[in-house]
């Protein structure tokens, strides 16, 4: 029990990351079911035709629903959305994983692509929250 708890807390120590563990999966279940529904072309069409109405089909919390309507990607991660399911919302908008990831970092897509072409983000300074604060 203690060891499991320590591991869960250790996940929370990674900066800029919401680890999709069993608790977050539980919290995000209905949100992720909504996102999963966007695998079907007719559902993508219905969602885009009336986003607010379509999201009412799913038992999401109001905060999750607002996160969807505003494409508030990091908030959706925090509320239990998993990135691969969130990507279906990005695809429904005609965007890519890369676009979604860039929005999560606060960069433009162009800036993000340039960072990746230079070898990506170094893990230095990003391994733990204390290391991150030391750099900030």
């Amino acid at each position, binding site marked *: 029990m203690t060891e499991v708890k320590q*591991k869960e807390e*250790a*996940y929370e120590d*990674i*900066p*800029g*990351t*919401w*680890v*999709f*563990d*069993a608790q977050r*999966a539980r919290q995000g*279940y209905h949100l*992720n*079911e909504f*996102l*999963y529904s*966007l*695998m*079907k*072309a007719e559902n*993508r069409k219905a969602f885009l035709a009336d986003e607010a109405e379509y999201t009412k089909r799913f038992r999401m919390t109001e905060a999750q629903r607002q996160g969807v309507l505003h494409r508030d990607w*990091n908030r959706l*991660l925090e509320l239990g959305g*998993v*990135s*691969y*399911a969130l*990507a*279906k919302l*990005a*695809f*429904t908008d005609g965007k*890519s*994983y*890369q676009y*979604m*990831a*860039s929005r*999560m*970092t*606060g960069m433009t897509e162009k800036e*993000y692509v340039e*960072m*990746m*072409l230079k*070898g*990506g*983000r*170094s*893990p230095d300074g*990003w*391994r*733990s929250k204390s290391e991150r604060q030391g750099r900030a």
Partner: protein
Amino acid sequence: MARIIAGVGTSHTPAIGAAVDNGKSAEPYWAPLFQGYEPAKAWMARTRPDVVIMVYNDHVNAFDFKIVPTFALGCASEFPIADEGWGPRPVPPVQGYPQLAAHLVQSLVLDEFDMTIVNEMQVDHGLTVPMTLLYGTPHAWPCRVIPLAVNVIQYPAPTGHRCYMLGKAIRKAVESWNEDLKVVIFGTGGMSHQIQGPRAGLVNTPFDKAFLDGLSRDPERLVGIQPLEYLRDAGAEAIELVMWLIMRGALGERVEEVHRFYHVPASSTAVGNIILESR
């Protein structure tokens, strides 16, 4: 007797599939990656396995969160291509091998690996991108494929040690199938990457190169890497690398590295490819 003759480790980044499907593979961004896979394609064309065991992960396509199997073995005769949100990839459906898959299930469960049996399943980029990278764009895939989907989406994923032991049990299961078959096993996903949150875009090239070295020369070291180390050092999605350890475990003790390629980036991912032949 059926034999696992080799293992292929490869990333399965969806943007790679999209680049091929949209005719972009010769563009400057993509050309170095596809050139880097040419030797692996040539090796595959020479090797011509009868069966591929594809260790991969589903990305909320075959499985939503109603049921989350840790190890799911595809026992169907055919696996359709999933619509992941932008329409199915224009690649051939995947032909399974139900008889051999059923044998694997039987052997693995008796070896204490509780496989989930899947008789209907769509397959996503996790499976089709490695096929495209190693086989190109044929009208039909030239081998049968047994998908082994591993949960690496909802933490915790199975440990590296568990995966390595499963690989060993797969080798034993294949070798007890009384038909002359050449089998190649794939371990896919990775390498270092993170596609979520403000830390997205993380790449750790020294970690990846050490992982490739370890596959070739010291897999026991890799087996000891803890889940948190993958997350911290190589990105939240680097945990996919445990699937490469299933592949390595299935090759027996002695291997010869016949090809290696490493490239950054494909979208948000560090791409690795290694081919190990059993000796």
